[in-house]
């Protein structure tokens, strides 16, 4: 079985600097060949051989799961691209400024043909430091895009004062506690900050600073929030798995993303999971290192999540 092709999803509100970032990625000397899937095809020049225009057709899956949507056009395009192995090393999907990232992300979990050939490397969201406050106020899409991100490019930092920048960063952290933030002007960011992130390598959730989480808790300028849970020691999979499955089924529409690294009792390997709405995906990955503290950490990002309930429920899953 050959390696799965990594896919980077580029989101960001209108005018935040997505296309600038995309062209930067494409023109840097990295020797990589990209297939680029763009919307608003032809509006701004994309400097690449393999550019495919997409229609952003969002389909509801008729499988009894109300929040399960996929991008039909993306399934078709990836299927087409995969017939030409060797023509490219990675795929970049640029979404429109108003797009909800959920259907894009879910496509990589729900469609077997796509998930057998391609893997979601990271969702990268470009944020306009100057206009974020207004956008958060006006557009739910802007919040969703931040909530979904693995990497956030806080762009146009030259257009705001240091105080305003700090405030914008707090707002971003308020929505998404675990994403890596890069502050930039003109989307200038090293390539390795956005590519090859391997979203499944969730080690950085283990590094979320507790003060951020406290900050999140008190900072209520948005109805989306992150809830991080840390349980030292082992968890009992026979308790945890039924709970998380039921929880995501019930609260799916409110959970934008969840991720975690778990230490299961008597299991030498780390169990890593991530999910989008009701869809969960997880498996055992590398072994715990000898010098690593065995603990379970997870993050839930969503609307109206009940921190007290989640904490209690996860606590009850201790081995």
């Amino acid at each position, binding site marked *: 079985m050959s390696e799965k092709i990594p896919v980077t999803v580029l989101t960001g509100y209108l005018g935040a600097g997505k296309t600038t970032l995309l062209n930067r990625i494409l023109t840097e000397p990295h020797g990589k060949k990209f297939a680029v899937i763009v919307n608003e095809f032809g509006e701004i020049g994309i400097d690449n051989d393999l550019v495919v225009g997409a229609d952003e057709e969002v389909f509801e899956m008729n499988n009894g799961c109300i929040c399960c949507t996929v991008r039909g056009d993306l399934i078709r395009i990836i299927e087409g691209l995969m017939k*030409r192995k060797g023509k490219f090393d990675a795929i970049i999907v640029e979404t429109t400024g108003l797009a909800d990232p959920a259907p894009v992300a879910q496509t990589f979990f729900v469609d077997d043909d796509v998930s057998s050939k391609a893997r979601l490397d990271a969702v990268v969201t470009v944020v306009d430091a100057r206009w974020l406050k207004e956008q958060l106020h006006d557009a739910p899409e802007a919040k969703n895009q931040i909530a979904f991100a693995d990497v956030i490019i806080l762009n146009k930092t030259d257009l705001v004062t240091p105080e305003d920048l700090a405030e914008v960063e707090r707002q971003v952290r308020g929505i998404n506690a675990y994403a890596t933030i890069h502050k930039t002007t003109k989307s200038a960011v090293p390539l390795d900050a956005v590519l090859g992130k391997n979203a499944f390598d969730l080690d950085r959730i283990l590094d979320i600073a507790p003060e951020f989480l406290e900050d999140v808790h008190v900072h209520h300028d948005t109805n989306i929030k992150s809830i991080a849970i840390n349980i030292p020691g082992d968890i009992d999979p026979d308790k945890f798995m039924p709970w998380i499955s039921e929880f995501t089924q019930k609260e799916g529409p409110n959970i934008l993303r969840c991720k975690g690294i778990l230490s299961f009792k008597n299991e030498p390997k780390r169990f890593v999971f991530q999910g989008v709405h009701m869809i969960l995906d997880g498996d055992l990955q590398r072994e715990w290192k000898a010098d690593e503290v065995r603990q379970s950490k997870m993050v839930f990002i969503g609307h109206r999540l009940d921190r007290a309930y989640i904490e209690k429920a996860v606590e009850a899953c201790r081995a």
Partner: protein
Amino acid sequence: MNDASQSLTTRVESLKADAHVILAGFLNDEPLLALADGRIVLGSDTLTPHDENAILVAACDSTRLITGGDDGKVILLTGKDSIAEMGNEKGRWIDALALGPSQSVAWSTGKKVVARDGKGLTKEWTAPSTAQGLAFAPKGYRLGVAHYNGASFWFPNTEGKPEFREWKGSHLDITFSLDGRFVVTSMQENTLHGWRLADGKDMRMSGYPSKTRSLSWSHDGHWLATSGADAAVIWPFKDKDGPMGKAPRECGVRHAKVSSVAFHPRALVVAIGYEDGCILLCRLTDAAELLVRAAHKDDGKITSMAWDKTGARMIFGTENGSAGILTLP
């Protein structure tokens, strides 16, 4: 599973493809491969009407091959010296194609559906969402279009609005039964949906663990073989109610999913290609199996199979560029 006495493996001659096989077939009795790297191999000739661009979709009957590429071109080939451009959707990918009666053809890109009759007259229709699959009805100039939340039936030569049959979900491939009484679509949700055209009655054909992307009618039109499960799932269409209330047959059960099916043109024998490169022949009457090709680890799935007109030879191709011809004893 199969001992040597039940094997046809020595009767398979390898062909060189070296690229994802989009379609394997026979054109005027010559073996034909349409490849994702843009090449069309016909007998000993290699043709490149799409230049270096990819062929994404193709369809073939015994005298015509039609290919659609990521260059937006739709090419009709009836012989090595007979190549014609049917259409050119510049800057778009061709998503679906169909060959119809009286030399008609159809193709689609996004929501745009184009039908071209034998005289070269083209008509356009905009589907409500991307047209994912096209098929002509066996009689008359009528095109079935599979799309999101249903299928539409369009008479390109009439002004009227196409007839729409609704069924929630994303419909992918579409096929008419040989007598034109039924139409079946495959769906994103790992199921098939059917309509009896006379009264629009819905038929659900479910239970697949993956998507069905290959459908093949038996020569008598009584059976529809389908891919997507760990066996070829074969639905009965002989009676007036088609498969309604009936269980399908399962042929060639293995621990690998079926990726391609092709009924023999004269006998109730179905060729079954699997995701691991294995091919079996299975006789419907007694479920007897013959091994055509053992599983090949590096070949990927069987992507296309077709019999010649008399059913003496069968050609196949794989995802990773292997191909071959079986000649029956």
